[in-house]
């Protein structure tokens, strides 16, 4: 009896909140720029600069990646640091505590009747899906500045591929298992690679993360300086991908270590 009373209270509160905020928001909405028109201050100042000369300056067709990796590259660096940090915190909080006793490795082949999550259908389809995801991830990584895509998506996709292999208990159980510490180290290497690409221009007289001043290819002609931007963005994308992949694998490894999938 007690709990559905509290649920009614919860529902009542919810309705009150919705009505109250709804009426308030109607008034607030009036001041905000109407959606869709192009001459609001938000769309007219810095944004137009990005659109008009993103391609010229950073040689990347996808303006969002240009803004993300080049104009505001510093933000993305600390974005990857946020991810790396969250993996670090997960490791610190969960590592080595309440380990689930490793269940004996059952060879699923003989155990016909186990309604295990794996089984042959899953195994067959799994063998096709994983390579496709991997290729797609790599594609997304290297086409970040031309079509959609970028470091985060690529890293996450590759981690998904690994995840599929890790979760579905197929016959070749636990073949490619990465220990969580190594995953964390991979992640830190990725982030460090990003920092290195930032530091390199500093030796060549540029500011931090200034791709025009990347030290290699000094012999390039003037107009190809812009190509350095592409190199810079690519290096960043690789760094981000490696870091994101390491982070996601590390988090999931730590967590999988603690759960048993035996039902």
């Amino acid at each position: 009896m007690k709990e559905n009373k509290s649920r009614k209270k919860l529902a009542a509160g919810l309705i009150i909140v919705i009505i109250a905020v709804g009426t308030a928001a109607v008034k607030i909405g009036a001041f905000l720029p109407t959606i869709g028109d192009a001459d609001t201050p938000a769309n007219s100042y810095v944004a137009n600069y990005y659109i008009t000369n993103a391609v010229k300056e950073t040689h990347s067709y996808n303006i969002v990646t240009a803004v993300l990796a080049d104009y505001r590259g510093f933000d993305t660096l600390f974005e990857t640091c946020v991810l790396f940090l969250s993996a670090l915190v997960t490791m610190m909080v969960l590592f080595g505590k309440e380990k689930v006793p490793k269940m004996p490795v059952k060879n699923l082949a003989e155990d016909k009747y186990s309604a295990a999550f794996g089984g042959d259908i899953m195994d067959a389809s799994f063998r096709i899906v994983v390579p496709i995801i991997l290729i797609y991830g790599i594609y997304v990584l290297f086409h970040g500045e031309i079509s959609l895509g970028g470091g985060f998506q690529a890293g996450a996709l590759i981690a998904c591929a690994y995840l599929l292999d890790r979760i579905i208990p197929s016959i070749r159980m636990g073949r490619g298992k990465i220990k969580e510490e190594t995953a964390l180290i991979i992640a830190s290497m990725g982030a460090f690679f990003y920092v290195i690409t930032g530091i390199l221009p500093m030796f060549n007289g540029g500011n931090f993360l200034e791709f025009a001043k990347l030290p290699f290819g000094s012999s390039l002609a003037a107009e190809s300086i812009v190509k350095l931007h592409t190199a810079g963005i690519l290096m960043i994308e690789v760094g981000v991908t490696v870091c994101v992949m390491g982070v996601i694998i590390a988090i999931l490894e730590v967590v999988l270590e603690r759960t048993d999938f035996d039902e």
Partner: protein
Amino acid sequence: MSELIEKLEFFLADRGIYMLTLILFAVAVYGMIACGNYMKKLMCMNMMQVSIIFFFLTFGQKNGGTLPVAIDEVLSAEAYINPLPHALMLTAIVVSLGTTGVGLALLMRIKDIYGTIEEDRITGDGGKKQ
């Protein structure tokens, strides 16, 4: 029928979308505060972040603008959607994954210590009473 849709669309454009976003934000914040179960709090937190992200993206919209990928020669700023909110919101989404990840890790740790993730049972003996 069509002028009804016309009027509705104008209302939505002017303030309808903002109203709905702010309602989603309020519901999510209410969920975070009122929900007893810590896991649900985390879900509501994620929803709150999604509503803020969407709120940012609505600024960038332009009628008739295409995706901010300059396939051919760049004609004019009108043609493309404003890329800046998109870049910012990529960061915000990644940050929301970070915080959710940390939240879940803490949740598991709380489960080990207290054996439950019901707020009243935890604060009953530990958290708030001190």
